[in-house]
């Protein structure tokens, strides 16, 4: 049925091999970019076919494991290269290949003239390959391959401008933080495998098998440990507290990379993983609570930092962290479908935002370059008034901003509202729900604020670069703009496939297609949760739901209003505010000094310990003992060697003496 699904990751792999091995010889940018984009287009086509096939099946049969070959077998352990086709993986491959394709197209324009153009496309294709492995893998190990693979590509692409030290540092940081997450992932996988095998004789790492046997698992206990381990993996990959600091730094990479990897696809892998293993997570209420709390905290915390950043990409990066927090809030609330839904809409509008910011940076960079200015092309303080210069970019950017701000009618509204409602109404966390909802709502307000702050600073007001440079600002080429338009369109309409029940009922019973579509994946879990709800299924009135929805919209509008007031009407207020509370501003601007804290707590002690172990233990203690033994032997030899005077007669004396004594002993004994 799905026999050709292995083609989906294969095309980007081929693209990677062609571009990676021959790209240097090809030289022609169009060909290289064409190969890269075409490979992804092929994958996209196959993905479309796959999802159509899937949709043609009845709900219960929408599940297939396609084995390609056996990877490794050892005793009771078996890992295949095999792909899992179900609604969840299908929606993911659609997002990945679809958005990925648009970003490939965009990159052809954006990366034009860059040194190592082929390298960029090779990495990008390698990333697509890894990401598709991640979402398609039917077992933990294959998922882990993709999981690490995307981490690698992220490392390579962040460090794309490797001659910049900051880029290298950022890449390394991303990789290492991801590795911390991987550590959790591995431990979780080991514990799960061992626990299932040892206790229930189910030696498997395949998701379907694990899901089938999940009913054997107890609630809480070991499962909490396992799920927390997995969640550690997710925090690394999806930039949640405490492992989020790599994502803002990752903005050192080229902007398409930020859009593809650090907004639309890779960072959502953690969310996807929790969705994929929902059968496990629901069996640990404690973990769900941890996830929800961490998600909400991240959403709020990152949003606060976002308000004070001046680098356009960093604002978007913190926004991404914050939005990922929402997704985890959804996952932690047991609303898996809502989380995945937000994942999708976020992919659309955040990709659009990043690509739009890329277009702005691209344009700014050229303008500044023309006048030989060394001003930062990414600093919003240098921008302003770009509305008229880049109308199409502005329009698409604005649409996406409205979507992320959660204005009704746009995709972000539907998904975000669903999450907030689920956070409020879910039966798991009791009183904590109100707090979670509150944090989410405040974060939504902050999101609206900083996103519109960004829009106002960038596109409105006076242009703050030199007039000479201003003349060189112009709209980007079509190859850049078309993806923007497509993505903006998706940000607007993408939400309508998942209209919340409340609104659906209002408009004559439009069903929530998306939730319905994902139902085969999450149904068992939802039933289980309904049975085991810790606090009983609460029945909230329709009015309450309307009220909450209204409140969040109002909060968002207030955020926009403040941004308008501060950055359009009276632009002196922010400066005054900064002057009044310098410490607060400094703390927020410096990201609450979390990086410094990590340096202080982890990095430096590690290095110091390493240095101590080397110079202190290795050299002094171990080698001290070794060399000490040598010295003892040598000094003993030093004493003994005086017996060897070098004079022949001394030797003859000892010889004669020896002969006499020994002979005497034998003769007279």
């Amino acid at each position, binding site marked *: 049925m799905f026999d050709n699904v292995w083609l989906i990751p294969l095309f980007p792999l081929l693209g990677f091999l062609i571009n990676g091995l021959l790209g240097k010889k090809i030289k022609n940018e169009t060909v290289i970019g064409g190969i890269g984009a075409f490979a992804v287009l092929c994958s996209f086509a196959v993905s479309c076919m796959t999802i159509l096939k899937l949709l043609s099946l009845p709900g219960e049969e929408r599940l297939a494991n396609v084995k390609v070959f056996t990877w490794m077998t050892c005793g009771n352990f078996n890992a295949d290269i095999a792909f899992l086709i179900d609604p969840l993986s299908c929606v993911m491959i659609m997002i990945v290949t679809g958005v990925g394709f648009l970003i490939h197209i965009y990159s052809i324009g954006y990366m034009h003239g860059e040194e190592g153009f082929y390298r960029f496309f090779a990495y990008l294709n390698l990333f697509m390959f890894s990401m598709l492995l991640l979402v398609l893998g039917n077992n933990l190990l294959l998922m882990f391959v993709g999981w690490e693979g995307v981490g690698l590509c992220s490392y390579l692409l962040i460090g794309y401008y490797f001659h910049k030290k900051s880029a290298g540092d950022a890449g390394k940081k991303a990789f290492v933080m991801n590795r911390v997450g991987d550590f959790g992932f591995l431990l979780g996988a080991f514990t799960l495998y061992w626990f299932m095998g040892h206790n229930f004789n189910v030696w498997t790492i395949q998701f379907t098998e694990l899901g089938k046997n999940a009913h054997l698992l107890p609630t809480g206990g070991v499962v909490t440990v396992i799920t927390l381990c997995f969640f550690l993996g997710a925090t690394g990959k999806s930039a949640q507290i405490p492992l989020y600091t790599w994502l803002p730094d990752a903005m050192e990479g080229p902007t398409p990379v930020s859009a593809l990897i650090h907004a639309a696809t890779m960072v959502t892998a953690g969310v996807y993983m929790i969705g994929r293993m929902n059968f496990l997570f629901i069996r640990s209420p404690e973990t769900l609570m941890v996830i929800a709390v961490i998600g909400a905290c991240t959403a709020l915390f990152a949003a606060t930092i976002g308000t004070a950043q001046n680098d356009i990409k960093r604002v978007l990066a913190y926004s991404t962290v914050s939005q990922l927090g929402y997704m985890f809030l959804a996952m932690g609330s047991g609303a898996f479908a809502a989380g995945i839904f937000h994942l999708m809409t976020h992919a659309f509008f955040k990709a659009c935002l990043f690509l739009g910011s890329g277009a702005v940076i691209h344009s700014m960079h050229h303008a500044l370059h023309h006048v030989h200015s060394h001003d930062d092309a990414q600093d919003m303080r240098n921008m302003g008034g770009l509305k008229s210069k880049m109308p199409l970019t502005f329009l698409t950017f604005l649409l996406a901003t409205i979507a992320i701000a959660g204005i009704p009618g746009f995709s972000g509204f539907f998904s975000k509202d669903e999450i907030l409602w689920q956070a409020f109404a879910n039966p798991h966390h009791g009183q904590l729900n109100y707090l979670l909802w509150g944090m989410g709502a405040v974060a939504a307000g902050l999101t609206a604020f900083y996103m519109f702050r960004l829009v106002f600073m960038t596109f409105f007001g006076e242009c703050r670069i030199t007039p000479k440079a201003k003349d060189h600002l112009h709209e980007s080429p079509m190859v850049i703009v078309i993806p923007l338009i497509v993505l903006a369109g998706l940000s607007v309409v993408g939400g309508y496939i998942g209209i919340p029940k409340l609104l659906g009922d209002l408009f004559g019973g439009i069903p929530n297609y998306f939730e319905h579509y994902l139902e085969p994946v999450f149904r068992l879990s939802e039933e289980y949760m309904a049975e085991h709800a810790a606090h009983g299924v609460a029945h909230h009135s329709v009015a309450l739901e309307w009220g909450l929805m209204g409140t969040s919209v109002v909060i968002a509008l207030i955020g926009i209003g403040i941004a308008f007031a501060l950055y359009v009407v009276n632009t002196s207020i922010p400066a005054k505010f900064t002057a009044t509370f310098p410490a607060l501003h400094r703390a927020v601007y410096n990201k609450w000094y979390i990086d410094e804290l990590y340096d202080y707590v982890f990095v430096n002690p590690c290095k110091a310990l390493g240095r101590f172990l080397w110079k202190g233990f290795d050299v002094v203690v171990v080698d001290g003992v070794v060399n000490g033994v040598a010295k003892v032997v040598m000094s003993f030899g030093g004493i003994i060697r005086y017996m060897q*005077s070098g004079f*022949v*007669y001394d030797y003859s004396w000892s010889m*004669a003496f020896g002969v006499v004594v020994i002979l005497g002993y034998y003769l007279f004994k």
Partner: protein
Amino acid sequence: MENLNSYLTVSAILFSIGTIGVLTRKNAIVIFMCIELMLNAVNLTFIALSRYLGNLDGQVFVFFVMTVAAAEAAVGLALMIAFYNNKESIDVEDVNMLKW
């Protein structure tokens, strides 16, 4: 013919004198001569026993010992000359490189 034991005793005395010489003298050539003396003492033993036992093998041995002594004299004296060329002395006290 004299008693075998007398010959052997003479030989032992000569051998001991040679030993004392080797141990106490510091002139390499004198030491060398003392070694010759010891060799001769042994030769005497050989010949005395050979005669006593009626077996000529001992005498042939003496012949070989003499050959060795001759070779030794040639090489040993050459060594001394070489040494003297370097050190202007043939005192064994001046030779102490044979260590470590």
